[in-house]
């Protein structure tokens, strides 16, 4: 189980290679990567992500421990960026390793749902000089209900 919070861009391929290399006990690896989406109606200049150093790592480790217990995960990796990001850049990634794909998929979804509304990150969007904080969605909060 590991978590990395960084400002610099990551290489998804290299991350997955390092995460899974040498593992012979896993039969399934699932990866999700979130990307800064461009908006054709109202072009996004950049995104700025703020986080709460210390609490971020702590809260994500807690989520990973829970996922590990629920799905007998072999391993998980979460990389999340902060600072300035441009359209098309990767924001974060989650990877899970399990014996079978059902566990790997479910655990990855669970980790994503919790990361969205329980890890202390805040996104700000900058459009032609105007900055606005992204509002949380009720649907993100509702997504957590299915795991209870």
């Amino acid at each position, binding site marked *: 189980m590991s978590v990395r919070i960084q400002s610099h861009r990551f290489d998804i391929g290299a991350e997955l290679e390092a995460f899974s290399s040498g593992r012979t006990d896993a039969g399934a690896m699932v990866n999700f990567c*979130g990307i800064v989406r461009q908006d054709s109606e109202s072009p996004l200049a950049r995104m700025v992500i703020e986080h*709460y150093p210390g609490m971020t790592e702590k809260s994500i480790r807690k989520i990973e421990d829970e996922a590990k217990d629920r799905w007998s995960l072999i391993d998980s990796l979460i990389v*999340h960026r902060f600072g300035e990001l441009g359209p098309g850049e990767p924001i974060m990634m989650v990877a899970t390793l399990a014996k079978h794909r059902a566990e790997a998929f479910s655990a990855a979804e669970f980790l994503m749902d919790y990361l*969205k509304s329980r890890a202390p*990150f*805040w996104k700000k969007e900058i459009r032609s000089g105007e900055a606005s904080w992204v*509002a949380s969605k009720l649907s993100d909060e509702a997504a957590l209900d299915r795991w209870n």
Partner: protein
Amino acid sequence: MVEILYFSWVRERIGKPRETVETGAMTVRQLVEELKSREPRYESAFSDLSAVRVALDQELTDFDASISGTREIAFFPPMTGG
């Protein structure tokens, strides 16, 4: 003495990322009321508490939680990670 941290638009409205305050408040809600009575910028940040979340020593909690023995209090809007 307790360290208070602000993030996102809560930080922008208050105008600083952190401060150390001397308080006699027993709960988060009392601390918020105390801050609001100090300066208008706190009133602007805390006018709608349903839009603000609080963490005590980096654990999410609610506004009725006791702050006795707490070293670090953080206020921020609902999180938007992922």
